[in-house]
């Protein structure tokens, strides 16, 4: 079956620009997560959705970052006024429910801010 998909796979943008990153979770998965992975590091939690609502956004680094999941399926991570420090791979994961269930990761979007 189809796994988690993310688009675009690569995004290069100039400092100060706005970007949107998209995640399509596995069909039927109610929980969706965004992580950010810098080079040589483990993924860092950003935000968790249960259905349409953000159950925990404590990992978002500042108010330039925002994410939505309006219909409880596809999610978009939005970054305003991008900075060079935002360069990383942004990973999306989904699981059937929240809690102690396996999270399935997408291929990621590599964001480069020049």
């Amino acid at each position, binding site marked *: 079956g189809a796994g988690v998909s993310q688009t675009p796979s690569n995004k290069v943008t100039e400092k100060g620009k706005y970007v949107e990153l998209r995640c399509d979770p596995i069909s039927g998965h109610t*929980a969706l*997560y965004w*992580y950010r992975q810098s080079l*040589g*590091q*483990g*993924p*860092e*939690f*950003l*935000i*968790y959705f249960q259905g349409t609502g953000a*159950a*925990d956004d*404590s*990992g978002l680094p500042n108010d330039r970052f925002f994410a939505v999941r309006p219909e409880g399926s596809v999610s978009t991570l939005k970054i305003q006024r991008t900075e060079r420090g935002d360069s990383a791979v942004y*990973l999306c*994961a989904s699981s059937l429910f*929240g*809690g*102690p*269930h*396996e*999270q*399935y*990761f*997408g*291929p*990621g979007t590599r964001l480069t801010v020049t």
Partner: protein
Amino acid sequence: ELKVEQNPLFLSMQEGKNYTIYCNYSTTSDRLYWYRQDPGKSLESLFVLLSNGAVKQEGRLMASLDTKARLSTLHITAAVHDLSATYFCAVDNAWGGGADGLTFGKGTHLIIQP
């Protein structure tokens, strides 16, 4: 704040040898996950450990969880080159006071040489 520490961070070993990767975490939890990441790829779930004393095995890999010691191990038996990758352990944030995102260790970069 939940902290997850892995060691070693880098391991070079020969085919046929055995070795263990250690994962310590800072809060009471009985939800621990192991992932594998190949260069330029996303994360592949290896094991989900959900109780004290849990042991799971898949091929040459075996993972265990000791919640009292706050320690999980990933043991590699008779290593083969195909196991070369970066291995991450992750703990559920819910036990650190957060929601269901994961806190990852920095990863163990494993190279297996013929």
